[in-house]
């Protein structure tokens, strides 16, 4: 474990965090070499599907940093970053990956030292966790791919996109929703979308029956059946053949 060097990817917003990272350099503040920085204009631009994809591909940790709340160059982009990160956290949990592998922090352009401290801390934390299991364990990888797929689906994106407004200003009818209510709906949606995408991925490898899927995923076959029905309605899954008297399903190519 000692010689393990985690691969860490960091999304930095151009205006505060990236400048903070530069300041760490200008001030010659040293930190571990593991971080690989991707510059984005705003932390709110970080689509949860991106980090999930990197984790699936074996990144040991992903950090996202933006301007402090209130300092956002785009007024409230970092608020949306925060909402999206919420979804990311849920999906990482669903995929059974340690929450410590992702991080969202605010770093201003004047916080060179803070940036270095954050990177150092996160690197140590990930080093502690050890290598990303997705590399060796195909189940975890499958989960992460399912999570990524879920993050790319309409339902979760629409929910997260509306979250800020729903819980601060309310819906079109002006009904404000408490964070708790929203979280409940979100959690349910995440569970569903994650499972359905997982089923679809499994079926895309090889056709299976509901029973088989249940065995593969450890989920009650009745729940699997509901999902399969829904997936068929979406046109993502279709009947492949009937073995004995149990139908076998396959994933459809989705354009």
């Amino acid at each position, binding site marked *: 474990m000692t010689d393990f060097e985690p691969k860490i990817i960091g999304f930095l917003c151009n205006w505060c965090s990236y400048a903070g990272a530069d300041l760490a350099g200008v001030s010659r503040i*040293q*930190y571990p070499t593991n971080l690989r*920085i991707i510059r984005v204009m705003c932390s709110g631009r970080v689509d949860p599907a991106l980090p999930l*994809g990197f984790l699936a591909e074996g990144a040991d940790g992903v950090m996202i940093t933006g301007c402090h709340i209130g300092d956002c160059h785009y007024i409230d982009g970092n608020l949306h970053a925060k909402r999206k990160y919420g979804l990311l956290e849920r999906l990482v949990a669903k995929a059974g990956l340690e929450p410590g592998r992702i991080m969202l922090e605010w770093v201003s352009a004047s916080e060179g030292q803070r940036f270095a401290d954050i990177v150092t801390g996160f690197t140590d934390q990930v080093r502690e966790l050890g290598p990303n299991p997705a590399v060796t364990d195909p189940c975890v990888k499958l989960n992460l791919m399912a999570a990524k797929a879920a993050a790319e689906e309409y339902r979760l994106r629409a929910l997260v*996109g509306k979250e800020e407004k729903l819980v601060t200003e309310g819906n079109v009818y002006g009904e404000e929703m408490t964070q708790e209510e929203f979280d409940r709906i979100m959690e349910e949606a995440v569970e569903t979308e994650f499972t359905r995408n997982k089923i679809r991925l499994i079926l895309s490898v090889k056709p299976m029956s509901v029973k088989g899927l249940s065995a593969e995923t450890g989920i009650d076959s009745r729940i699997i059946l509901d999902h399969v029905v829904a997936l068929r309605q979406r046109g993502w899954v279709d009947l492949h053949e009937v073995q004995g008297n149990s139908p076998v399903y396959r994933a459809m190519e989705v354009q």
Partner: protein
Amino acid sequence: MSEEPRIGVFVCHCGINIGGYVDVPDVVEYATGLPDVAYAEPNLYMCSSDGLQKIQEAIKKYELNRVVVASCTPRTHEPLFQSACEEAGLNKYVFEMANIRDQCSWVHMHEPEKATQKAKSLVRMAVAKARLLVPEEEPEIDIRPTGLVIGGGVSGLTSALSLADQGFKVHLVEKEDRLGGTLLKLDTLFSSNVKASEVINPLIKRVKASTDVTVHLDSRVADVKGFIGSFDVGIETRGEPETLSVGTIIVATGADYLSPEGLYGYGQVDNVVTQMELEQLFKEGGRLDGVKTLVMIQCAGSRNEERPYCSRVCCTEAIKNAIKLVKENPKRDVYILYRDLQTYGIEFSMMEYDAKKSGVKLVMYDKERLPEVTGEERGPMVRVYSPLLDEELTIETDMVVLSAPIIPNEDNEALSKHLKVPLNSDRFFMEAHVKLRPLDFATDGIYVCGTAHSPKEVAESVSQARGAASRAGIPMAKGRLKTAAITSVVDEAKCSGCGTCIELCVYNAITKNERGLAQVTSAVCKGCGVCGASCPERAITMRHFTNEELEAQGLAALKEA
């Protein structure tokens, strides 16, 4: 760009800043082996004129169509290298930087091997992105050289005149049947005690005389279409609709004064008036002769739970009038009951001392124990507890003057909806940034000044009005506006018209087109990418920071050298 990518990689030593810790030749050699890299070379100082020339030579010699520079931070140097590429005939958006100084050599000075490894992977990431880069256009839009000023008070008039003096046509829309606004109601103005009429009348005269300013009285803004450069503003003049085609809009709608019904006996006890009414009495003259004792009460309706903000001008206004009253008749007893004297800055501080010298009695009261006004035979009777004296004073007065706060116009709500610009919690117009963009709205081409934004005295409004005219004049002076290329673009085939992006965009850059689908006005888009990251259908692409490009960067990072 259809043809095969041919990437040139240029690695900077930056003296010893990079070269001292990162094995630059090794990085160059490594870069040469990367996919689609046609050429790579080191240089002592990439940013030196010699370095830039080398890039341009290489572009020609090796027919490069992508350029990667591995050196310092793009925040300071990207534009330099981009223009070098442009001079060599490349579009500036096929350029990418790898920050191997500020974010590598300088922060890993004690681990040269690892620093070199990191530098390689930063270059690998940049190359991965560069392969996918495409040329971007910076579309230009026309800016109509005509400004719209909403509001014909001192701010609006000043803005309009400045715009005219800058050489633009101006439409001035005023809801009343005459120009002048609040100043018409005032007698004198602090700090110089100049007659309000001497300030406002010359402005009105100049505006009326100006051939560049078209005045629309009795008019209101009914609806607003378009964006910076080409706003189509529908106004109604006595029911008559008209559409004004303008390039920029200045909001100078001013504010109102609270009528403090029920406060301190206002409306119930005789001779309890507001500062505005006192100004009116001054204008009419005479009626104050009988007034021997007069009490002014500050914060009458402000700095409380209902209206938390301080109205800024009342203390100085009261002091101005108090001095006037005692100088008129030194036997007069004039009290100002205040909480915190807001006599800020030099002139107002001096007025405060003048008041004390002239014998104006300043009595501080406590918010927890407000003064009381009751109607008596002789006139209003004031009871006030002074914490400093620790006793309650009872003052028999001839008149009580309430300093009622400036409050936002009730039609701010409507106008803010038409212009799609926000109001703050006090219902005044809210600027783009409290500190550095006090006169702009987040929406390009719309500006604010004067008391429409918050309570202000005349001089501050005049400065702001001139300032707003400068801000509005900038795009109009340029005539054409080069808009950023790093913007969102909607793939209509994918868009379902859910409107999520429209709600998310603080710049109102996204609207629904006639088919109900989202469309980005790139002139207005600031390129943050929030919409793209949120689009349920993933129908929005972020130019120059596409998902594919970011994905490629990340996956390249995960590959080991």
